[in-house]
């Protein structure tokens, strides 16, 4: 009897240490709650608090209470940002993983997990944006089983679903290390290369499919943005956006969570930044050439001298060519600050491109076009809340899981 009590005490204590260690990062409850009170967390809590009633209203009173949605403008900024601008950023996982595992760029090794995590979490959030915007979100899984094979959206849905699964499997070694499960870990690592190739295929298809969604709108999308090359334009811009995002993610890691990075990560970051910067610059030259090619093939030159033409030129020169040149200078002079700035600039440019296709150049010829595309404030609050949640969750994981560091007992296993 006495033994039993002792034994159960020991397990409780063991579980408690395990729990504290894994979730509270080894701190006691009071220490941990004190560590939470920071200016950033206060601002985050405030945003989430404001957004809560808006989310409730959306699900109780319907979409029209929170977004501006009409027959002419069914997709608003929420989707432009959450899906169309988000997914190219979150292609980071497939680009870095392909670089390390398939192209054998060994110096990417400490960064693969961070990129894969960034991608996986991003895709999970993209799906969450859908759960806000779908008319009947509880039917989201219908997209898997109705086989609308003529629909580009069917392609997008299936590939995003498969790719989230693949990314979860790619990231599973980190989870298994956190849990300390060596046997499953070994198995999970052994299937990596097949998963990475699968990830490359799924990413290629769905990034281009996002562009292909608009192939069906020749009468509605402004001719400067409408092109039969939309799929390849979306894909090639996703490649350099992904590289830019990976550069920024690594920078955020060493800047804000330095104590969670091991030496290899910190020492390797400059070389990683330059290498990805080089790749991103190359991809941007390709994208720029394709954009000009599309313009020439459809012979749209005369449209450049209209108001939409100036806007188009601002996007192409100001947000593609300019960061492209800055990136080139940064790489040639190994100026890390400049590379990071150019990466941010390029990523913002792609967000602008997606918002243009989705919102600004879509149904551009309708009367009162510009009054219709301005999002109402609840939509903006919801976007801010989603971004906040995204950052909080990413930080939570980075603080606990072995992402930017290699645990000694798992050294050289992946």
């Amino acid at each position: 009897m006495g033994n039993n009590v002792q034994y159960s005490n020991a397990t409780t204590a063991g579980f408690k240490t395990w729990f504290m260690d894994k979730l509270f990062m080894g701190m006691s409850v009071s220490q941990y709650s004190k560590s939470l009170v920071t200016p950033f967390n206060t601002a985050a809590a405030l945003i989430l608090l404001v957004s809560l009633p808006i989310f409730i209203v959306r699900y109780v009173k319907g979409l029209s209470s929170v977004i501006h949605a009409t027959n002419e403008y069914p997709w608003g900024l929420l989707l432009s940002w959450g899906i169309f601008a988000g997914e190219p950023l979150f292609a980071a996982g497939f680009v870095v993983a392909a670089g390390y595992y398939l192209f054998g760029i060994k110096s990417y090794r400490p960064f693969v997990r961070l990129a894969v995590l960034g991608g996986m979490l991003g895709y999970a959030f993209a799906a969450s944006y859908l759960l806000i915007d779908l008319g009947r979100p509880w039917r989201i899984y219908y997209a898997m089983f109705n086989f609308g094979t003529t629909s580009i959206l069917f392609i997008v849905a299936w590939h995003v679903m498969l790719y989230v699964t693949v990314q979860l499997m790619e990231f599973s070694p980190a989870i298994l290390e956190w849990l300390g499960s060596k046997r499953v870990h070994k198995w999970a690592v052994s299937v990596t290369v097949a998963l990475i190739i699968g990830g490359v295929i799924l990413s290629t298809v769905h990034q281009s499919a996002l562009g292909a969604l608009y192939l069906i709108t020749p009468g509605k999308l402004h001719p400067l943005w409408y092109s039969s090359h939309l799929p390849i334009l979306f894909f090639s811009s996703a490649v350099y956006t992904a590289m830019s995002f990976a550069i920024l993610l690594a920078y955020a890691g060493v800047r804000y969570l330095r104590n969670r990075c091991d030496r290899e990560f910190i020492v390797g970051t400059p070389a990683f930044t330059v290498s990805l910067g080089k790749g991103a610059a190359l991809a941007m030259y390709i994208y720029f050439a394709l954009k000009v090619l599309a313009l020439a093939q459809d012979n749209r030159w005369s449209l450049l001298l209209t108001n939409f033409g100036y806007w188009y030129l601002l996007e192409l020169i100001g947000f593609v060519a300019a960061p492209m040149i800055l990136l080139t200078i940064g790489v040639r002079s190994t100026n890390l600050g400049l590379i990071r700035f150019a990466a941010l600039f390029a990523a913002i440019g792609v967000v602008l491109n997606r918002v243009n296709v989705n919102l600004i150049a879509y149904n551009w010829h309708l009367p009162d076009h510009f009054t219709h595309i301005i999002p109402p404030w609840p939509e903006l609050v919801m976007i801010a809340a989603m971004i906040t949640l995204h950052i909080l969750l990413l930080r939570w994981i980075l603080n606990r899981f072995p992402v930017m560091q290699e645990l000694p007992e798992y050294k050289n296993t992946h």
Partner: protein
Amino acid sequence: MSVTKKGERKQNRKQGGRYSRRNFLSMMMLAGGTAMGVHALAHASPEFNGWPKANGMLVDLTACVGCRSCEKACNEANNMPAPDKPFDDSSVFKEKRWPSAKTYTVVNAYENPAGSSAPVYRKIQCNHCLEPACATACPMHAYTKTPEGAVLYNENVCFGCRYCVIACPFNMPGYDYDSALDAKVVKCIFCHGRIKEGKLPACAEACPAGTLTFGKRSDLLKLARKRIMNNPDKYIDHIYGENEVGGTSWLYLSNVPFKNLGFPDNLPKKPLIELTSNYLSSVPVIFTTFPAIFGMIYGLMRGRKNESDSENAPHEKEVK
């Protein structure tokens, strides 16, 4: 929201549970048959020119007097919610309205460019394309082009992505954004039930001005051409809907350019599905070639990696 629901309930009562279920079943079988039929035709020839005996509607805009009888009849026949302003109130013409979740059809007034004081009226509703972009875009098969001519929507499989609204070249499907639980697409059903019973569509039956002519689409095209031929000064030499996006069941004649009446004038003549089919057929190519290409790259790079492993890697840190 409550108004819509009431309308729906009323409709259900009217049809009776059993009858509507049988109707639904036959519709489903029809839907299956339609899908297979389209596919079979698509394999036989890339040119699908519509169901041969499909119905259509010829709208002679020169005859329309803007009485809105069609709006009223449509509202009653389809148990739609009561309008914001009564149907005999002509003040609605001050703004450009659009079909919505509350109404299948509206009539708008447009300035007559010829200088005449009388405006030109245009009835707006789903045009029931021969190869509908909404049906192409839908990931759920919620849309069916029936052999009779109507493009029908099934809310039971729809999850509300609204890609059909993005895809529709005429901005027709109206989405019920006001409903939290029953959000759905609302659009003209070409009085499918009435046609199957041998009746006219409600709007055509109600029109007192002879604007709307219901019949076989092929006959209506002949009639439209004859009207243009007999009155070359009156009509513009263009039957809107004959070729736009592969043809629509609803056809229009006008005395002013269609662009002035808000008709899109930049649509391709081929069905919009042809713009996406090339991309779709490239997807299996990616799936078959990429594993080989990237597998090869992996193999090549792994060979190189081993070499460099033995030479440089272990010393890299010390060197630096």
